[in-house]
């Protein structure tokens, strides 16, 4: 693991039922259709349409799909705009923080953690 301080990250912004979320671009394999891979369900809430999907796969595992309503683009975000989730917001296995887009908090998702098919999930 590199000790280099990360100054910027690329996040994919997407929309589920009117709420914006972000995920690390390096976790995303591609943007596809809802029926391109097994769905991880609706860990972030049920999409309004859900025809699009973020397809991802942790190493050695098959591709899975997080159903979304649309992709809003890829943003390069500086470390200074990122925040850990406050304690009082409670622990979440897959919401790992927030990007402060001016005064709006955009929740950041660890896509791999949403995957119920991963081996760690079956032991949890």
């Amino acid at each position, binding site marked *: 693991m590199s000790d280099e301080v990360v100054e910027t990250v690329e996040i994919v912004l997407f929309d589920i039922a009117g*709420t*914006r979320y972000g995920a690390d671009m390096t976790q995303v394999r591609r943007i596809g259709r809802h029926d391109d891979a097994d769905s991880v369900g609706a*860990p*972030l*809430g049920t999409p309004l349409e859900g025809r699009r999907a973020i397809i991802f796969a942790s190493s050695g595992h098959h591709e899975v799909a997080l159903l979304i309503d649309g992709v809003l683009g890829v943003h390069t975000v500086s470390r200074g705009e990122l*925040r*850990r*989730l*406050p*304690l*009082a*917001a*409670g*622990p*979440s296995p897959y*919401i790992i923080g*927030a990007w*402060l*887009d*001016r*005064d*709006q*908090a*955009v*929740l950041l998702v660890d896509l791999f953690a949403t995957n119920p098919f991963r081996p760690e999930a079956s032991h949890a």
Partner: protein
Amino acid sequence: MEPTPLQRALAEAPEKTRPQAPRPEEEFFIFKLGALTLAIVSKHIREVSRLAPLTPLPRTPSFLLGVVGNRGQVMPVIDLLRFLQQGESKPMPGGRLFVGESNGLLVAFLADHVIGLRRIFVADKLPPPAGGGPAAEFLDGLVQHRELGSLSLLDLPKVLQAARASVVRR
């Protein structure tokens, strides 16, 4: 000649004003929410602000409305009406919120109307009503205020502790 009442009173008058024992008082932050007028000890209040765009958090209790960005900080927002099972607030963009603090936890709360700070005599506090429902558990007492009517004194540290425990349990 018979002394007049004034002369008699003056004869018995003290040399100087007797110091009165001070009545202990506390400062409270007072706000309206739904039908309730609530008061919180002011040392637990960090600031009053406007509601920024709210981002809902998935899979959290209904009283935790989501998070907002508040002056560079991400902050959870609680609806006290839902938390106290007294109905529900309707968060409006630009509506009022205040930031409460206890034991290192910073949380924003919705308010319909902020009244401000008032000093209240500790001796005027009445105990919360017995059998007053789930809300009574989080009350430190009641006060009949001359100007504002009935005030419910909210125990904010207890609210934050219970809210945090409820969120963690899920």
